[in-house]
């Protein structure tokens, strides 16, 4: 009985392991590369030429390009999808992203308010 279930179980397990080593395709890599080049060139051009005029607008634009490019790299180069390793890689990624957002947003938020509230009452520029 037990040997029978084991025998039934094993081939399925091996198939599953073999499926996980999915490599990219030439087309997928080239699409990813093309998108990366465009998504890198535009932010550099925006900053170097100052085409948008306002610094704040440019900052938001290049941040948006960075986010899109990171997603492109994840999908086309790291072959991220919900199926690899039964979804565990995606789960680990989502968990990490939550931690990254907490660390980044939390640090900037707390330290910005600390700087603002803890400023000495006098103007530092007048101190010799």
């Amino acid at each position, binding site marked *: 009985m037990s040997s029978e279930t084991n025998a039934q179980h094993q081939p399925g397990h*091996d198939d599953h392991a073999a499926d*996980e080593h999915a490599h990219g395709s030439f087309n997928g890599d080239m699409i990813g590369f093309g998108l990366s080049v465009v998504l890198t060139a535009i932010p550099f051009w925006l*900053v170097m030429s100052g085409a948008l005029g306002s610094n704040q607008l440019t900052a938001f634009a*290049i941040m948006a390009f960075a986010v899109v490019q990171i997603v492109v790299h994840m999908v086309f*180069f*790291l072959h991220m999808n919900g199926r690899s390793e039964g979804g*565990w890689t995606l789960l680990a990624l989502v968990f990490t992203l939550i931690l990254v957002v907490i660390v*980044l947003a939390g640090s900037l938020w707390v*330290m910005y308010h600390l700087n603002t509230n803890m400023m000495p009452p006098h103007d530092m520029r007048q101190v010799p």
Partner: protein
Amino acid sequence: MASSISTAQNAEAPVFYLRDEHPHPEGHSTPLGFWIYLMSDCLIFAILFAIYGVVGGNYAAGPGPKDLFDLPLVALNTAMLLFSSITYGFAMLTMAKGRVAATQAWLAVTALFGLAFLSIELYEFRHLIHEGATPQRSAFLSAFFTLVGTHGLHVTFGTIWLFTLMAQVAKHGLIEANRRRLMCLSMFWHFLDVIWIGVFTFVYLMGMLR
């Protein structure tokens, strides 16, 4: 029904659910384990980015990003890393077809782009230090050198790893273990490219806007 279960329980010795561990093919959990390592590495970089974000504006009356950064050089550096990513992708594709010589050639090209990236970065660091913008100069420069230097150190170790694997493939060919190792380095290499997107956007480009 219930009686048959109870007699079966009485007849046999206590049964554990994991009676015998079914054999795992060697290395079947390596990709997931390596991915989790990369995620922990991602947290290291998140902390370094957070530090840079907090103290990146503290110049201590020293030079700021606009005085120091040379965007065309950074663009060249970014291009080197992007090219190395696509050539590593080609190496993985030729590896999937089992062509040893082509795989080795693409790995060598990738290593060259990696070394070019490192050379440009070292040139930039040397230039900054020559101008007096050392890590000791201000909190901004300490955070800058730590963040960009940690990324550069990762690329350095990735390149050493790449040469090691080229020697392995030369000696043993594209055996299953070497394919798995190349797969892990592929993830590592592309991951470093993702981190670099954050570096050139938040450190260099945003620095020029400040």
